[in-house]
C-alpha cells in the first residue's frame, strides 16, 4: 500500500499569540479529493496556510513520506504542494499568459510548458483569447479557473484550494467543481478542498474532515457524512 | 506601591537630576564648554519642536533646519537693522518660523508620509542658496555679525554664563509649553491624528486643524531656538544652516527618542559633542558613527535612548517588585499605545 501523498500529525498553528490549530491530524491519499469542512473561523484556512508554509506551524507535515515542516514556502512548492489561496488566487496585475508562466516558474522543460498551455487553452478557449489581458479584468469565476490552471502548470503532487466557490454564482461554482472533479478523474490529481459549501463539496469529495475550533471533530467518507442527518444539521448546515 | 507609581517617581527624579545638572553647568565647566552647552540648548529647543511634530503627530520633517534658519536670520536682521533688543526679537523669530510652518503645514496635508520627507528635504537644500540670493537683507555670504548681550552688573559670572542662563530660561519656557501641549486635550488630539486619522475624525477631531497647528507650533519652537542660536553664536550666515542641520535635528530626535522631552536634550548633546569628539580621532568617523547609530537605533531601540532607558528601568522595577517573598508580580499599567510606544517626559 502506497504512503499517502499528504500526512499531517499534530499540527499546531496560529497568528501571533492567538492559537488557532490545536493538533490536527489528517491525510490525503493518491487520487483522492479530501474536503475540509466547518464553519467560519474553524481554522480551515489556517490549515492550508500552515501546509504551504505561509504561516509558521508546529507538527509533522509529510509530503510523499518526506517531512517538509522545516522547509520554506518556495521549497514546498518545489516539492509539489500547490496552494490556491483564499480570494483571487491569481496575480491580478499580470496578464493571463504571465499568470500561467508564473505557475510554470518551476518547470524547466519548455516542451512541457507548451504542452500544458495547449491543454489549458484547449479546455478553456477563452484563456487563449484573453491571454494578454490582466487577470484582474476577468470575472470571479474565470479568475478561479485561471488560478487552478496556474496551480497545475507545475504538475503538483497535491492541489490545495481555499474556498474556491467564495463569491461565485452557483452555476459558476458548479463548473469549477466539475473542473476539479475532471482533474481528479483524468489525471488522478490529489485535491485538498477547503469549503463552506458542504453539499456541493461532498458530491465530489471522497472523504471529508469536519473542523471545529481548530480541531478535527469528525471524519468519514463523503457519502456517509452526506447522509447522516445529525451531522447534516450540526455541522454542515444542510 | 505599584509599578507606575515607582516609574513616575523615578521619572520625576530623573527630570530633577537633569534640571539640577543644567543649572550647575556654568559652575562645573570652563567657558568654552558653557558656550557649547548653550548651543546644545538652542538645538534642543528645535528638536523639541520636531518631536512634537514627528513623535506626537506623526508628520515627518527634514526641514527643521529651515525653521531654525528663519528664526536665526530674523533675530539677526531685527537686531542689526532695527536695533531691537535681543530678547524682543525672539517672539518675532518664533512667529516668522511659525508662519512658514503654517504655509508649509497647509499643503503638507496632501503630502503625508514620504512625500513630506522629500518636500522638506528639498526645502532644507534650498536654504543656503536662498540666503545667498536675498543678499540685500541677509548680507549673503558675508553673513551678519551680532554683538553678544552684556550681562547686567548685578549678575555674577561672565558673558558666556549669562547667555547660557538666557538659553536655559528659554528652554524652560519651551519645555513647559511642550509639556502642557503633550498632556491634555491637545496632546490627545495630536496623538489621535497620528495613530489613526480616520478614527480621530469620527471622534470629532478636525484633522486638518490639528496637523497644521502641529506644524506651526513645531516650526515656532525651531524658530525660537534659531533666534537664540543667533544670539549665542553672535553670527549667522548661509554656512550655519546647511542641509545637514536638518539631518542633524532628525538624527537627534530619533536618538533621543521622538516622543520624549528629555530625549530632545540627549539628542542635542549627541549632535553637538559627538562631531567634535570623533573628529579628534578621525574626521570621517563622525559620519560613520552617526550613520551607524541611526541604523543601529532603528534595529534595536526604536524609541531612542530615553525609550531604551525606560524599557530597562521598567524591567528592573518589575524584577525588584516581584520579590520572592510576595511571590506575585504586580500588574503593570503602562501607557502603552497601539504601536507599543511609551509616552514620557
Amino acid at each position, binding site marked *: 500500500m502506497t504512503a499517502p501523498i499528504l500526512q499531517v500529525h499534530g499540527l499546531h498553528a496560529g497568528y501571533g499569540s492567538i492559537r488557532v490549530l490545536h493538533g490536527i491530524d489528517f491525510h490525503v491519499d493518491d487520487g483522492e479529493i479530501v474536503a475540509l469542512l466547518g464553519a467560519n473561523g474553524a481554522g480551515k484556512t489556517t490549515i492550508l496556510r500552515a501546509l504551504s508554509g505561509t504561516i509558521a506551524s508546529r507538527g509533522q507535515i509529510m509530503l510523499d513520506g518526506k517531512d517538509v515542516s522545516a522547509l520554506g514556502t518556495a521549497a514546498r512548492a518545489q516539492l509539489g504542494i500547490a496552494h490556491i489561496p483564499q480570494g483571487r488566487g491569481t496575480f491580478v496585475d499580470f496578464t493571463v499568459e504571465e499568470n500561467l508562466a508564473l505557475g510554470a516558474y518551476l518547470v524547466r522543460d519548455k516542451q512541457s510548458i507548451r504542452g500544458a498551455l495547449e491543454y489549458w487553452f484547449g479546455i478553456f478557449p477563452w484563456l487563449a483569447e484573453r491571454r494578454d489581458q490582466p487577470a484582474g479584468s476577468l470575472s470571479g469565476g474565470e479568475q478561479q479557473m485561471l488560478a487552478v490552471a496556474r496551480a497545475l502548470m507545475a504538475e503538483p503532487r497535491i492541489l490545495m484550494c481555499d474556498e474556491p466557490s467564495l463569491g461565485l454564482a452557483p452555476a459558476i461554482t458548479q463548473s469549477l467543481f466539475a473542473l476539479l472533479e475532471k482533474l481528479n478523474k483524468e489525471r488522478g490529481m490529489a485535491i485538498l478542498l477547503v469549503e463552506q459549501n458542504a453539499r456541493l463539496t461532498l458530491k465530489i469529495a471522497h472523504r471529508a474532515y469536519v473542523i471545529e475550533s481548530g480541531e478535527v471533530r469528525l471524519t468519514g467518507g463523503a457519502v456517509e457524512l452526506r447522509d447522516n442527518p445529525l451531522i447534516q444539521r450540526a455541522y454542515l448546515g444542510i | 506601591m505599584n509599578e507606575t507609581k515607582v516609574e513616575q517617581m523615578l521619572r520625576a527624579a530623573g527630570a530633577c537630576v537633569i534640571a539640577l545638572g543644567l543649572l550647575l553647568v556654568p559652575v562645573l565647566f570652563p567657558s568654552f564648554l558653557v558656550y557649547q552647552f548653550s548651543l546644545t540648548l538652542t538645538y534642543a529647543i528645535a528638536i523639541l519642536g520636531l518631536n512634537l511634530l514627528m513623535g506626537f503627530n506623526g508628520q*515627518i520633517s527634514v526641514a527643521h533646519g529651515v525653521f531654525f534658519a528663519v528664526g536665526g536670520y530674523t533675530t539677526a536682521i531685527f537686531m542689526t537693522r532695527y536695533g531691537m533688543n535681543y530678547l524682543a526679537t525672539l517672539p518675532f523669530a518664533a512667529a516668522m518660523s511659525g508662519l512658514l510652518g503654517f504655509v508649509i503645514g497647509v499643503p503638507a496635508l496632501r503630502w503625508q*508620509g514620504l512625500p513630506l520627507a522629500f518636500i522638506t528635504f528639498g526645502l532644507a537644500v534650498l536654504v543656503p542658496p536662498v540666503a545667498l540670493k536675498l543678499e540685500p537683507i541677509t548680507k549673503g555670504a558675508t553673513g551678519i555679525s551680532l554683538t553678544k548681550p552684556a550681562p547686567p552688573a548685578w549678575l555674577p559670572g561672565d558673558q558666556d554664563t549669562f547667555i547660557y542662563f538666557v538659553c536655559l530660561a528659554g528652554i524652560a519656557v519651551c519645555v513647559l509649553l511642550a509639556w502642557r501641549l503633550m498632556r491634555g486635550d491637545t496632546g490627545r488630539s495630536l496623538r489621535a491624528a497620528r495613530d489613526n486619522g480616520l478614527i480621530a475624525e469620527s471622534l470629532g477631531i478636525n484633522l486638518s486643524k490639528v496637523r497644521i497647528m502641529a506644524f506651526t507650533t513645531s516650526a515656532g519652537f525651531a524658530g525660537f531656538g534659531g533666534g537664540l542660536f543667533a544670539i549665542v553664536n553672535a553670527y549667522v550666515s548661509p554656512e550655519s544652516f546647511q542641509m545637514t542641520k536638518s539631518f542633524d535635528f532628525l538624527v537627534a530626535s530619533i536618538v533621543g527618542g521622538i516622543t520624549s522631552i528629555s530625549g530632545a536634550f540627549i539628542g542635542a548633546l549627541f549632535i553637538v559633542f559627538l562631531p567634535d569628539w570623533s573628529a579628534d580621532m578621525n574626521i*570621517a568617523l*563622525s559620519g560613520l558613527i552617526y550613520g551607524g547609530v541611526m541604523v543601529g537605533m532603528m534595529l534595536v531601540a526604536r524609541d531612542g535612548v530615553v525609550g531604551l532607558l525606560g524599557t530597562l528601568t521598567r524591567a528592573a522595577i518589575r524584577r525588584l517588585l516581584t520579590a520572592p517573598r510576595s511571590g506575585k508580580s504586580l500588574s503593570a499599567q503602562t501607557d502603552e499605545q497601539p504601536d507599543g510606544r511609551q509616552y514620557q517626559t
Partner: protein
Amino acid sequence: MQLFLQQIVEGLASGAIYASLALALVLIYRATRIVNFAQGEMATLSVYVTWQLNQWGVPFALSLLIVAALSFVFGAFTFRFMIRPVLGASDHTMVVICIGFFIGFEAIALWVWGADPRAFPRIFPDHVWIIGGVRLTANNLGILATLCVMTLALSALFRFTRIGLAMRASAAEREKSPLVGIPVETMLMFGWGLAATVGFVAAALIAPSLFLSPPMMVSVVIYALAAATLGGWDSPAGAIVGGLVVGVAESLCATFVGFIGNELKVGVPFALMAAILLVRPQGLFGTTAVIRV
C-alpha cells in the same frame, strides 16, 4: 532660439542622469516599497572603486565593467544584511535607516579617499558636433545613448525573461509568489543589486564633469527624487520621463527665468515635486499614490 535649443540639449543630458538615478530609486521602491536615499552615496562609492582600480593600472573600460558587477553584489548584500532584517518596519524607520546609510556611506568614502575632489577619466571622447548652431557634445549624446540602452535592456529583462517576471511578481505579490516556487527574498536581493548597478551607471556618467568627491551625488539625489515623484514611484517609464522633464525644466529656468538663475535652480525640482504632489500625487505615470491614509 538657438539658445533655447541648446538649453534643451543640455537639459536632456543632465536629465538623463537624473533619470538613471531615478530609475534605480524606482526599481528599489517597486521591489521593496523603500525609498533608498542612500542610492547616490552607494553609487559614489562604486565610482571611487572604479577610480581606484584605474589608478592601480586596470584599464578604464575594464574597471567600469568590473565595478558594474561589484555594484550588483554591493546592492544585493546591502539588502540581504541590512534591509531584510527590518522589512516590515514603518515608513519612519525606513526613512531613518536610509538616511543613516546616506551619512554612513558618504563617511566611508571620506575616510578612505579623503575630501579632495579627484578627476575622473572621460568616458566619451571629446568630440563636438554643431548642428543648426546647437552644440552637441559626444558626452551628451553618449549619456543619452547609455540611458536608452539601459532602459531597453531593463525592459527586455522584465518583459521577456523568466527571472524578470519572477522579480516583478516578487515586488507586486510578495505573499503569493512563493506559492509558485519563487524565492522572493532572492528576487528582492536581485532587485537591489540591479538598482545599485543602474545607480553606478548614473554616477559614472556624471563623475567626469562634476569631479569625484564624497558629496558628489547629493544634489543629483534631490533631482532624482523629484523625477521619480513626478513620474510616479511605481513606474520605471515615469522615472525616465520625469528625469528628462526635470533636467530640461531646470536648464530652461536657470537660463530664462531671471530670479532663479543658476543659484536657485535647485528649487526647480522642488517646485515640480510640490506641484505634482498637489495636483496628481501618484505622478504622471504612476497608478497608486505613495501617500497612505
